């Protein structure tokens, strides 16, 4: 993986210049309905600057809805969402993206008809991708260089996920929202993604990630927010959750062996 990326503004993955003490993202009593269904029943949590915050929970707990609500793709009917201390409620997804949030959706959101290059170029709001950032992407995901000119629709599932992550990180972002990057992927590809995400984290990026694969969550996460039935049921350090199997079982129904 390339070490050529400088940490100065524009080429690194650091999370802005705001005071370290201020959480990068705050949700306060956020309530979201999807059509006639009440999905989020007053969600409140904070994402500290730097590191990976894992959003965990059973299927249907409201994790994806939470990410989509932060991104502005679902409108909350109550509560506040603050990015770097500024309200982003009511902003369009485009405005929120331009405030510095990169989004990797659950379905990857790849444009199949566009080439890999065009997918990346579209994500570079400034016009052309930053060369150093592109080198990092090629270092982390060599397949994207190989199939640079190929239609994204012809890539394998794993390569599409790599492209989805690459597209989010091609621009400087305050925060990355990543929804189940390991979903449906072979272990070897999950390992590649995990390595890239770990490198991103080590370079100072802030990530809020939804993940069902607890091994991956444990390998990457620093902080944990656990949801159930549209509510936050637990927040704390990953080390704490990782060490307490009874807590895992109570919160997420997990019964697993620890390495």
């Amino acid at each position: 993986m390339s070490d050529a990326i400088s940490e100065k503004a524009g080429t690194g993955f650091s999370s802005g210049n705001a005071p370290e003490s201020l959480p990068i993202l705050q949700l306060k009593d956020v309530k979201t309905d999807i059509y006639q269904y009440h999905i989020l029943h007053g969600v409140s949590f904070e994402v500290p600057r730097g590191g990976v915050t894992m959003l965990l929970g059973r299927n249907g707990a409201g994790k994806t809805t939470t990410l989509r609500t932060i991104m502005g793709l679902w409108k909350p009917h109550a509560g506040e969402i603050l990015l770097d201390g500024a309200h982003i409620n009511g902003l369009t997804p485009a405005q929120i993206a331009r405030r510095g949030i990169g989004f990797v959706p659950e379905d990857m959101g790849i444009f199949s008809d566009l080439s890999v290059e065009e997918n990346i170029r579209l994500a570079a709001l400034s016009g052309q991708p930053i060369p150093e950032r592109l080198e990092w992407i090629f270092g982390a995901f060599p397949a994207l260089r190989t199939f640079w000119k190929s239609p994204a629709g012809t890539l394998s599932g794993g390569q599409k996920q790599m492209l989805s992550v690459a597209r989010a990180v091609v621009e400087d972002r305050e925060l990355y929202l990543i929804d189940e990057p390991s979903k449906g992927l072979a272990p070897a590809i999950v390992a590649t993604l995990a390595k890239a995400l770990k490198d991103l984290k080590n370079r100072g990026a802030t990530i809020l990630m939804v993940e069902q694969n607890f091994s991956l969550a444990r390998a990457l996460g620093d902080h944990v927010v656990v949801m159930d039935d549209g509510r936050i049921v637990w927040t704390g350090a990953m080390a704490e959750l990782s060490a307490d199997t009874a807590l895992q079982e109570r919160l997420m129904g997990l019964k697993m062996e620890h390495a």
Partner: protein
Amino acid sequence: MSESAPTHAPKMATLSLSDRLKPWLPLLLVPALIVLGYFAIDSTSSWLTLTVSGLAMGMMIFVIASGMTLVFGLMDVINFGHGAFISFGAFVGTSVLLALGTMTGAPSLMLNLLAIAAAVLAAMIVTGVMGLAFERVIVRPVYGSHLKQILVTMGGLIVAEQLIYVIWGGHEIVIARPETLKGAITFAGAALEKYRLLAVGVGLVVFLALRAVMRRTKIGLIVRAGVENPEMVQALGYNITRVFVGVFIAGSALAGLGGVMWALYQEIITAHMGNEIMILVFIVVIIGGLGSVEGCFIGALTVGLVQNYAAFLEPKLALISNIALMVAILMWRPMGMVPVIKAK
């Protein structure tokens, strides 16, 4: 967890030659039809005349339909009011051409083309502004509801037609082609109408320009991505609503251009002419693949050729030829000739 990066072969690497060629098969449809026509029509001169006529008709339908296919693909809007832009374009263009009678009547190709350019410009500006108003007032409140879209855009079409009656009167207007575009040239024993040759050229220029914009510019990239997954385009930081409006205006202006071309082709215009062409436009948009400019181009040329060949070979079949073509193509490719993948 393993740290080694695996090498994943994409599916494309394992595709057979026939699988790789499959997406390009529709491109062969137009030349195949032309060859088929050559063997089906006894006289070579008749075949050549019909082929140019079919291509000219196809190009005009393409100009009209290209905007509509993008509007449908990008915005998921079924706009039955598209015909209003064709009629308005024809009336505005005709008014300009009649006002520039000295230029159209002069035996100078330059003056004639200048008059047509002025008519086209006026028609495109008026229909572009109409498109903006149409999107704001009629279409925007009904995004996401196809039934409402059909109802309100039909209503918009009726209102627009009535406006034409108010402004230009209820009678049809005869418009003669500019002096140097009247008549035909003889090539290989076939009479080729000068205006039809011009229409083929204009259609080709519009297609190449649209393709260049879609393939080589950032806005084209946004539109192509938006056709597939508008939500993700927004999440990348682009204001898709602004793109919607821009595409709607461009699509309306292209329909206005098509209206002027069709007016000079038929040499007579009526308030409901746009509505009449819409049947062919819908067929082209459907068989081309909703949202695909390339598919629209192939579909329009196919429809133009089939209509002309069928009218010559078996006039009674001409009426159903394009419906039969649509059925055949949809049985072959249910998503249209150049299908656009939708994330929705």
